[in-house]
């Protein structure tokens, strides 16, 4: 077994390097885990970065309460296997206490409300680095994001005043109260993530694969009709369709796509041939051209 040569793939090598910098430069890092494919990929990379030691930081899930049940099941199983600590903070708690107000109507979503819960949790635990699975190819404001992205006390992103990142040197020096958002798979594309999942044989929640689901169509997008958190007008007709999800955000803002990709090989093929971008099925980005940039300025992940 000791005969071979290793050439670590450039993107994987970069991500592992970033994880190690986080642990070396920060006192209290945390990995923001949504149960989606990007954060699952992060977990695998973190495992590789520190093996044979355990992942040296907890995972944290900001739960909107609108998750696909499959995702939660999956999350709990993964955490148990890895033997890492899982922190869950609920958006519902902030709604109950009246700190944030829930949106209502056709396009109501809890996506925006996550920000407040996230900022509270960062303060509660004193996290100085929050590792996330955002990628630059997702959205054009994200394309401008640094790998180490400094946030102030209010979690704000100062997009016009970002630190230059040259070569692979990462400057994690911050003042008390500031924290850094870290994006190890910044340079990966959606296809890179899927190919990696295939290559590594990483398990992911079942909703990523084609399955039969009760759905309805609005504005040309397919929505799950299985759950009451997705607002539906009486006249919007429910039909069973073969669908899968390309992202697993809050159910209320994540649309499905028609698909017959029932396994990882077929999913990778489908992504390769796809003519719609990943976030094309995220209604939260369609609110305005600057939707993502605005959310990020307010501390959104």
């Amino acid at each position: 077994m000791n005969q071979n040569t290793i050439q670590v793939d450039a993107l994987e090598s970069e991500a592992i390097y970033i994880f190690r910098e986080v642990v070396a430069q920060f006192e209290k890092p945390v990995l923001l885990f949504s149960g989606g494919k990007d954060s699952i990929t992060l977990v695998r990379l973190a495992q590789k970065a520190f093996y044979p030691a355990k992942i040296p930081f907890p995972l944290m899930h900001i739960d909107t309460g609108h998750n696909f049940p499959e995702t939660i099941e999956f999350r709990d199983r993964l955490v148990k296997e890895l033997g890492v600590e899982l922190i869950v903070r609920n958006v519902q708690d902030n709604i109950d206490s009246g700190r944030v107000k829930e949106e209502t109507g056709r396009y109501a979503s809890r996506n925006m409300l996550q920000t407040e819960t996230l900022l509270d949790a960062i303060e509660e635990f004193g996290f100085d680095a929050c590792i996330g699975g955002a990628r630059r190819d997702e959205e054009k404001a994200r394309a401008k994001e640094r790998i180490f992205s400094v946030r102030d006390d209010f979690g704000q992103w100062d997009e016009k005043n970002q630190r230059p990142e040259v070569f692979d040197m990462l400057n994690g020096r911050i003042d008390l109260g500031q924290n850094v958002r870290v994006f190890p798979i910044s340079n990966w594309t959606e296809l890179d993530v899927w190919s990696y999942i295939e290559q590594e044989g990483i398990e992911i929640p079942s909703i990523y694969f084609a399955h039969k689901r009760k759905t309805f169509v609005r504005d040309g997008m397919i929505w799950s009709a299985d759950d009451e958190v997705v607002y539906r007008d009486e006249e919007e007709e429910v039909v069973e369709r073969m669908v899968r999800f390309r992202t697993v955000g809050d159910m209320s803002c994540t649309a499905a796509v028609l698909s017959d990709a029932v396994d990882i090989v077929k999913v990778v093929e489908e992504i390769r041939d796809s003519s719609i971008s990943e976030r094309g099925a995220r209604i939260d980005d369609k609110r305005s051209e600057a939707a993502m940039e605005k959310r990020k300025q307010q501390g959104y992940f």
Partner: protein
Amino acid sequence: MKVLKIATAGSVDDGKSTLIGRILYDTKSLTDDKLEAIEEKSRQRGFDYLDFSLATDGLVAEREQGITIDVAHIYFSTPSKSFIIADTPGHIEYTRNMVTGASTAQASIVLIDARNGVVEQTYRHFFINNLLRIKNVVIAVNKMDLVDFSEEKFNEIKKEIEFLASKSEYKGQKLTFIPLSALKGDNVVDKSDAMPWYTGETLMHHLESLDADDINDVSETRFPVQTVIRPKTEEYHDYRGYAGKIYGGDFEVGDEVAVLPSQTKSKIKSINFFDKEFAVAKRGSSVTITLEDNVNVSRGDMIVKTTEEPTIAKELEATICWMDKEPLQASQKYYIKHGVNDAQAKITQLNSIIKTDFSGIEENPSELVLNQIGDIQLKLSKPLSFDAYSKNKSSGSFILINPKTNNTVGVGFIK
């Protein structure tokens, strides 16, 4: 998948956004929803063409002013290769962004408007490519359709760039000249019928033919230790793994190595990647290694082959690109980050400012302001293990951090 990082610089007027848009469009990398969004926005603004800059200028301020402020990263792939374009603004006030974008690039595209020929911005862009020693540089002469696809015009520009190249101290650079029209699509992805006199490759064909492996610089092996892995479990009770990324060359089990700066000698006992062991690890790999002897190794130390030791010193000379509003002045103190190693540094001397238009240097200046490039001397609080940038990019570069603001204020290239 092989990934090739390409830096571009230039203003909207050069047709850079159009070129990138054209590449995305012709390689079918723009998805329908993104294309629709561009079509709609272009219509709203009263354009009769597709404004591809809307795809890349991601910030509100950029779209308002119609300029690129910050580095944007654009991803696309062809069946054989993945590409990352670091798209940077080309104006003089954005020199730092150009340096940032180009620092991780393995190839670069210098865009020239055929009507205007070589302009000040071309000089600067070319200068930075040389400073960073980017091996593959494509000179893309754009808007050929507006000069009647003139071979003469193209050759004029080529000659001027070749003259510039002759003045540069970096001789390893490979220049490729391609005449094209980004707007019309000539020689971008598809070969142009309008320029039969050009027999070379199209831009995309050329980029596809560059091998990312070849362009990673081969040099002596450098292994800066990022962190020490100690599982402290029963199975791995005495395990001490040194985690880091290998730069320059390869490592093999049994290699005789020295831990720097202490120069303690040992041998590589194992090379681990995740749950497997390997005999050889290639450059660019993030791995974990263990040593035969129980030596003292911590973050910031560097493991090298005993036959390939770098310079170990408490002072150094470097060319620096200044990136902060507060100017650099002699006798100021900064933090220095050299790879993953940290120290304090004092500027003992500011020797000169280097003009990025190849017009020479200004000696003994009083300060170096934002976007200027100059030569300095540094005194360090502890010995660092470094190489000349020309010999090894990773161990030959550093950043300076302002201790008051924690901002990255400069990037240095060791002489």
